[in-house]
């Protein structure tokens, strides 16, 4: 596979000698224009890699914050075509920051796998995380995605033991996403010691960069996890900032984009601090 934006970004981070910040927001939350403003502002705020959620009505692996975020986007009329259009608009201004689309399989399947992969590549997407397509179904989406030149990023979890790990690593590219807790997004805070031990265990089996996420809320937590990980993922905390900034009717305010980007800034500077 040829080098992707994700590969280049992790190589650059290694050179800088620091862990990267991976940010998650849902496309279209709370509306498309505000969401585009947030997306476009993320690189300057310090996001190294952007995960953009494809909203789904039934996000089974997500906690209340991301569920609500997904529903806000859908209520505002977000659709797959609009999510891809957001990436296209972003790429006109930024050629370097990797974008990973993250979500569930059904909206992709209904869009049509082949059409989706072609349109995602054309829009400037670099990788996919599809929560409910395990290695057992690699021929469905993972292998065609790799063939299309996209990274397919898999989640490893505390239940991924040494017996299971090779299956998870096989065909994973770009980076490995280590889910730091057994649970849904935004739940209990991860135990830094446990996570470090798990990351070290996984490192013995792969040269892929490892990003750690689920439950990371504060700059202090991010900094602590960065000691063992190549990148730290923050999602629920960001969409919670969006929720807090809305007016009584649930609409974006002038504070929405700035408050999300300012949290990103503080997370990024924690990871950059020596």
């Amino acid at each position, binding site marked *: 596979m040829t080098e992707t934006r994700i590969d280049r970004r992790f190589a650059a981070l290694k050179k800088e000698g620091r862990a990267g910040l991976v940010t998650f927001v849902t496309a279209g939350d709370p509306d498309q224009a505000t969401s585009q403003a947030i997306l476009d502002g993320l690189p300057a705020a310090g996001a190294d890699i952007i995960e953009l959620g494809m909203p789904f*009505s039934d996000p089974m692996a997500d906690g209340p914050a991301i569920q609500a975020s997904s529903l806000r986007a859908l209520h505002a009329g977000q659709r797959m075509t609009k999510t891809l259009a957001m990436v296209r608009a972003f790429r006109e201004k930024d050629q370097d920051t990797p974008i990973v689309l993250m979500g569930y399989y059904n909206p992709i*399947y209904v869009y049509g796998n082949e059409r989706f992969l072609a349109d995602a590549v054309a829009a400037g997407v670099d990788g996919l995380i599809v929560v409910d397509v395990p290695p057992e179904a690699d021929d469905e989406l993972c292998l065609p995605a790799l063939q299309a030149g996209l990274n397919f990023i898999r989640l490893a*979890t505390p239940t991924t033991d040494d017996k299971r790990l090779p299956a998870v690593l096989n065909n994973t590219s770009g980076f490995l996403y280590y889910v730091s807790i057994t649970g849904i997004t935004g739940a209990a805070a991860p135990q830094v010691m446990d996570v470090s031990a798990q990351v070290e265990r996984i490192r013995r089996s792969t040269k892929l960069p490892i990003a750690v996420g689920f439950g990371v809320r504060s700059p202090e937590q991010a900094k602590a996890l960065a000691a063992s990980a190549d990148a730290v993922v923050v999602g629920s905390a960001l969409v919670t900032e969006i929720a807090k900034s809305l007016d009584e009717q649930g609409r974006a305010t002038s504070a929405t984009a700035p408050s999300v980007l300012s949290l990103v800034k503080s997370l990024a500077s924690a990871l950059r601090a020596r």
Partner: protein
Amino acid sequence: MATPTDKSSEPKLNSLRNGPDERGHFGLYGGRFVAETLMPLILDLEKAYNDAKADPAFHAELTNLNTFYSGRPSPLYYAERLTAHFREQAKAAGKSGGAKVYFKRDELNHTGSHKINNCLGQILLAKRMGKTRIIAETGAGQHGVAVATVCARFGLPCEIYMGATDVKRQSPNVARMYMLGAKVNPVTSGAGTLKDAMNEALRDWVTNVRDTYYIIGTAAGPHPYPQLVRDFQSIIGKEVREQMMAAEGRLPDTLVACIGGGSNAIGLFHPFLDDKGVKIFGVEAGGHGVDVPNGHAASMNGGAPGVLHGNRTYLLQDDDGQILEGHSISAGLDYPGVGPEHSWLKDTGRVTYVPATDKEALEAFQLCARQEGIIPALEPAHALAWVMKLAPTLPQDDLLVMNMCGRGDKDVFAVAGYLGIAI
């Protein structure tokens, strides 16, 4: 088991009964579409189930519980007055038809529905796997009651997820679950119905995967659930084969069952799939009518293939792949998906799937109560609604079996409300 004259009850090569394949597929449908956290457990469950299937002690314990705890076999009952009623209707239309209608009385099981068949099997699996906590989703509450029952019987703590809307419309079952010692968690996300309860149960499972066993209530979800739930429910069809041989000396001609997720239906249908002479009908919840957008829960008659809750199957969804809530008067049928084996049986044409509306189900509910002295649950009332249309058109020697999969005690207040009866 099978009588000497009934030699076709074991699957053969080229059988319609060999599914799923080793990856859990029924043709295009089924599979294992779950988050990575759950995958190791799903694979463990598959292994535990295969071990149990090969273990005579497992079958002996299950048979013992079915017999002495649940009260199986359930009777195959000749519905004489309904049969006469349908024949009169045919006669009035100048025809000579009117099938001979039998009910498979699974509403007489302990807990009042077919759900106990599956729960007894799965609680034994949970025990084999050393799990110490049970969770489940429920729609009408029949499955929740059955889960709470087996958890009480085996001394395991249990939490039931139930949509907040369903908690209201099925309050008698909520009370039963509490009395059996279960914790009922009302789910307010979405429309607060079965789909949302299943999402929340999956979230619990992902969080507590190490000690928790999830008793899925229908023949859906990730492999191996559709297979193992079907196998536990197939006792319905196996008994019907024997009972009809004993009663009439031959197999039935027509089978009818209601479909939400489709566990009672696949349990009745599966042992007959290779008997080409047997016509099979599954009845979906037509709600306000399958032409009313988002006004029904007929995923096969008014949906499209997609991936949800661990399997690929027909789903109620919009053209962006977002799942629709659906609607049915029956909380047990109010689900946007269906078991994957049904999707496959639809595409192969072996089973005919038809909708029955809320209104038709209410009429069937009343007819059954007055003609047979049996108050059906709203779920099998949908099956009966189709029998009301079909039976008068069939010849008098057509042996029709409808699965009376649940009793209507839980529905009497809701139905009284719909009919405007002040209690």
